[in-house]
């Protein structure tokens, strides 16, 4: 990608804002989502507390405070990194509307990424801070002991959004080959929910499954930012974890750009 095909800083900022405002117009859906994520957070945390109590106060190094923080940060991340996936772009490929995105003077991946960052920012407001505030008030959270924890978490969360964007983009781009991506999307949903550490922390998994999960980009979506938030990973380890996320982000973005290029070469625009 040469500089000329990237949006100018002004255009990038406008696109981020547009992504933010687009999702801000669906207030009822946002609220319903936050309530659902909070409800399941209560269920999940009750089970995790029971497990911790049975194990004598902590499981796999997570005590009650860490489990609470893990649960509420993870529940908050669901919407920010769209763990349940979406087929918006695949739909644009299926209907042929993708010609509009391809006909702009800037690279479509840059436009989509900017809009997705805006979407994630909007998701933070209610979908992230909502469950987190509820959890803090009702169950209490572990308070960070190190000043670096919050900025490290923010960087990690942004990288998580970029990794998530690239994964979802790749899944959606399959639509250039298979017009119906629902099958691929379900596989992605199951894999991302389990292997990201959303259901239970990856440290709870048997050794072989931990190994498998760490070979995928999914822990970069939830487990890595959460472990930074609960200060399981700190200092140099935290920086290494961010580097790992960044590597996935760059690699997957490049793969998505390449896949889009291949896809457009064989494009048959649907619907005339």
């Amino acid at each position, binding site marked *: 990608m040469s500089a000329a095909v990237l949006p100018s800083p002004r255009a990038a900022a406008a696109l981020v804002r547009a992504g933010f405002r687009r999702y801000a117009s669906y207030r009822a859906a946002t609220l319903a989502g936050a309530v659902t994520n909070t409800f399941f957070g209560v269920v999940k945390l009750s089970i995790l507390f029971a497990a911790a109590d049975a194990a004598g106060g902590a499981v796999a190094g997570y005590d009650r405070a860490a489990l609470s923080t893990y649960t509420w940060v993870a529940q908050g991340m669901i919407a920010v990194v769209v763990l349940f996936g979406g087929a918006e772009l695949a739909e644009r490929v299926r209907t042929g509307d993708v010609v509009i995105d391809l006909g702009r003077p800037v690279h479509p991946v840059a436009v989509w990424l900017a809009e997705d960052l805006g979407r994630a920012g909007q998701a933070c407001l209610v979908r992230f801070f909502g469950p987190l505030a509820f959890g803090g008030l009702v169950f209490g959270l572990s308070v960070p002991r190190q000043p670096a924890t919050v900025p490290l978490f923010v960087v990690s969360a942004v990288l998580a959004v970029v990794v998530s964007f690239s994964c979802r983009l790749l899944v959606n781009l399959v639509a250039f080959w298979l017009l119906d991506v629902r099958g691929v999307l379900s596989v992605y949903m199951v894999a991302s929910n389990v292997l990201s550490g959303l259901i239970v922390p990856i440290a709870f998994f048997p050794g072989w499954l931990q190994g498998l999960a760490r070979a995928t980009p999914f822990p970069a979506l939830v487990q890595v930012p959460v472990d930074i938030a609960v200060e399981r990973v700190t200092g140099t380890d935290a920086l290494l974890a961010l580097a790992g996320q960044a590597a996935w982000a760059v690699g997957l973005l490049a793969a998505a750009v390449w896949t889009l290029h291949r896809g*457009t070469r064989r494009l*048959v625009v649907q619907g005339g």
Partner: protein
Amino acid sequence: MIVELDGLSRHFVVRRPTGRFRREKRVVRAVDGISFTVAAGECVGYIGANGAGKSTTIKMLTGILVPTSGRVRVTGLEPVRQRRELARRIGVVFGQRSQLWWDLPLAESFRLLAAIHRLEPAVARARLDRCVDLLDLAAFLDTPVRQLSLGQRMRGEVTAALLHAPRLLLLDEPTVGLDIVSKEALRAFLTEERRVAGTTILLTTHDLSDIERLSDRVVVVDSGRVVHTGGLAGLAAAAGVDRVLVVDLAEPAPPLEGVPGTRFLSAEAGGLRQHLALTGSAAAAVAAVSARVELRDLTIAEPDIESVVRRLYHRAAATRPAGS
């Protein structure tokens, strides 16, 4: 030349199951060796029936679709290789798709497009103000695009396509689904845009009046091939397809032969309803008819593009040497 096509073709391979396991491969020649040019400032109508290859051609002109063979140049650029550079020089309106941001107010789409095209805010402002004025957009600038009527949205689409002052405007069925008033408003605006900015226009349409109102010249395609190019003066006449005046009379009358500007075609119901082919102005013909008999009702049947294209195609086929 703003647009140059030389032997442009696009073939699609369609696979069709013919038995339980067997699939038949069939090559569809959507565009099959099309050549024509459009000079700066011209407005060319690109017409043909459904499936004639119009949209496929437009997509190759924008660089979105890779040609199978042939050469294409748009504003001097090679569309597929220089697609994004070209996007700064052309504006495109697909009548059945939207380039606006669906969930956001219309004005927001214009701000985004101005930023994407790196327009100076003052320049963008001036161009937008002109469109808002001429296309009457002010009332719904703050309405989310998904809530606009089709007519309002199309006016928004045309503005979006013209914001960056493109040299070439590609319009793919811009009036499809619009009511008469919206169609007229759009045509008047496009005429004005050509006069003021000298924008070159290539337009596909199913509506013969779009062509008559807007274009200097037509290229007619059928089955992926050019069957007619030329001025549109008497396009319908050239094809031997007439506008037909149908008159319902108060009382049965003998055939209305010899009415100036018409040719008698047929009569029904013992002369109560008569069909006259119009060779001149409809108004003069109606006046001449009503001078002779008492009119109860009348309609004018415009030739549709399909019949014009079909006639032109058959004529081209008849004059083509055998075996070519």
